[in-house]
């Protein structure tokens, strides 16, 4: 079987699995799997750019995804009345002061010669800067958070169309990635893994605790949508009529219509990004990236600035994760910082990339769709399996109850097993790099 035929069949297989969900369970769950699968595919493309094409080990995907989510709140929600005048500008000023402190510290570290004078002035600038920052920040934060805390308490957004939040999410993630990459990527070795692991936790901590920003764990709900609301569709006689002509009741038809609307939007973004990623990799830039990956010493000898290239691709990959994060928050219609877990948003994406085939964009997309399908479906399958296994046990058995209750945790186990099996028996992934 030739390569393209095999790959097409693999995609058809995953499509078939989703269709099967439609027939066996419900079309709503099928489209839901499709939508999150598409978003996961975008994240996987981002990680694949970094790992597959540059060997950069990003274990902070969760952080960039969350930043994308934050962008949705900041771009699309309405500004909280009075928040800006009460403290918004003060907060911006404080943040600028904080940035200035860090910049000054970096300048000192770079410009002054090594020695006690540098250490002392460095510490002095940082300590002073920290207290000035807190002095400006704290009262303004308190002022903003005091405004209608039950429903708002944050500065709100810019009231711009929510679709704008997607590129904005990418930009936000890119900014964060640039900062991390700048410090963690080095000449002889880098320490990106631990840096990304840390920054992801910090971003989540900020989202959870800085209520003025996006209400923290109080969550922002009811985010604007790029697609119509179900209730509006159900009240639209034209829609009800065309739904009826398809033999669907208006409620099902409207939910499907909305979800499929998202699917189309996501598919467009995925295809555009996929096309861009493919084009970039076929370009001289992409060839150079691979040359660096395969033989860094030789590439360096030819005068390539390896660290700079790595920084570029790290920022690009993270931006893609940010876009995906914004799309996901848009789909959810809410930002809930408490739900960001590294296993789900960092390591699961890694499983997708490795299973799909690191170094191949189509592999990443396939892996993402397949793994997402499994992630969703393992739970019911596990439950069913447990019921079969425990069928022989007596009814009130504690073991039986425990096994059935624990079926939900089969999902993590399965992901680990899938990853290990693929690594062992098909280490290049389902669609290997050519």
């Amino acid at each position, binding site marked *: 079987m030739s390569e393209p035929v095999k790959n097409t069949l693999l995609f058809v297989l995953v499509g078939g699995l989703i269709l099967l969900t439609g027939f066996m369970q419900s079309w709503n769950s099928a489209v839901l799997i499709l939508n999150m699968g598409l978003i996961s595919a975008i994240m996987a493309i981002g990680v694949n750019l970094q790992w597959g094409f540059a*060997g950069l080990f990003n274990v902070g995907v969760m952080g960039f995804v969350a930043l994308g989510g934050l962008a949705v709140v900041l771009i699309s929600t309405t500004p909280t009345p009075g928040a800006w005048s009460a403290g918004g500008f003060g907060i911006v000023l404080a943040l600028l002061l904080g940035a200035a402190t860090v910049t000054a510290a970096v300048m000192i570290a770079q410009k002054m010669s090594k020695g006690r004078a540098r250490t002392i002035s460095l510490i002095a600038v940082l300590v002073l800067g920290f207290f000035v920052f807190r002095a400006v920040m704290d009262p303004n934060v308190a002022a903003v958070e005091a405004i209608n805390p039950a429903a708002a308490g944050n500065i709100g957004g810019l009231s711009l169309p929510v679709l704008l939040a997607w590129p904005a999410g990418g930009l936000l993630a890119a900014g964060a990635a640039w900062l991390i990459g700048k410090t963690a990527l080095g000449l002889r*070795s880098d*320490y990106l*893994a631990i840096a990304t692991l840390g920054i992801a936790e910090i971003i989540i901590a900020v989202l959870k605790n800085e209520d003025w920003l996006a209400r923290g764990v109080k969550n922002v709900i009811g985010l604007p949508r790029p697609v119509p609301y179900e209730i509006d569709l159900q009240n639209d006689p034209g829609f009800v009529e065309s739904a009826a002509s398809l033999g669907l009741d208006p409620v099902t038809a409207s939910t499907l219509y909305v979800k499929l609307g998202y699917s189309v939007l996501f598919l467009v973004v995925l295809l555009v990004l996929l096309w861009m990623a493919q084009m970039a990799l076929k370009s001289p830039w992409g060839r150079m990236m691979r040359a*660096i990956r395969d*033989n860094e010493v030789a590439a360096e000898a030819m005068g390539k600035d390896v660290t700079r290239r790595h920084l570029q691709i790290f920022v690009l990959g993270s931006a893609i994760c940010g876009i995906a994060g914004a799309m996901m928050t848009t789909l959810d219609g809410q930002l809930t910082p408490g739900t960001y877990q590294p296993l789900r948003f960092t390591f699961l994406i890694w499983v997708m990339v490795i299973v799909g085939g690191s*170094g191949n964009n189509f592999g990443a997309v396939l892996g993402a769709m397949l793994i997402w399908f499994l992630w969703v479906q393992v739970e019911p399958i596990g439950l069913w399996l447990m019921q079969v296994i425990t069928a022989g046990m007596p009814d009130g058995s504690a073991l039986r109850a425990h096994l059935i209750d624990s079926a939900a945790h089969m999902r993590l186990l399965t992901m680990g097993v899938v990853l290990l099996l693929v690594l062992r028996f098909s*280490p290049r992934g389902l669609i290997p790099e050519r």
Partner: protein
Amino acid sequence: MSDSPYHDDHGNKDATITNKAGMGTMTPAHRKSGKTQYVGGGPFLIGDSMTGGYGKGPDILHDCTIAVDKGEIAVIVGPNGAGKSTAMKAVFGMLDVRSGSVRLDGEDITNLSPQDRVVKGMGFVPQTSNIFTSMTVEENLEMGAFIRTDDFSDTMEQVYDLFPILKEKRNQPAGELSGGQRQQVAVGRALMTKPKVLMLDEPTAGVSPIVMDELFDRIIEVARTGLPILMVEQNARQALAIADKGYVLVQGQNAYTGTGKELLADPEVRKSFLGG
């Protein structure tokens, strides 16, 4: 680059998750030892008409013969890329010998792994990374004696007698010693197994001429204890001066063979390899 997907690290150089220091690079010809056979006769250690190369690669050695007998120093010299170290590695089992054989004390050991050759009594000092830098001198010697189950304190005393400076620095990390002292640790480590033959891969690489002379003196001293020494050397003139037997290799083949004196006197050898 090898084809194994497990060897593809995508150029990752993240020091927080991977540790490349001290990683194994050795690719022995046999991971598991095969049978040995007693054939008898011949010199104490001989790599007899060896032809072979690394793994599936092309042949580097062509019908090359290297031998050392009891009480002798044998030296392998030759131009860069002549296959000197390769010949020694072939004798030590780190190269696939496709035809020819290696015999130690009359026993055919061609199919043994390097570790088992150590057990059989071959001491090998690699050219680089030949000491445990983070461990003390004494610990280095102890590790040399790892395969011994008997009391090795007398061997250690012998090594200290041979290299008095090591006794002085016994509790210092070996990595903090000078180049010449490190080489002494390396040779000392190999002597701890009480080998029947000692193989040195360019023991004087990268040390100053004074240190080099001292190292040669020490090597002669070791040889006087009756231990046969097979050694690869860059500094052909000095090495041949102390050699009982010399092998000049060119492109993986024996070009000239004779006693050290003969080779030094041979006008051909002088002209081509010793600079007149």
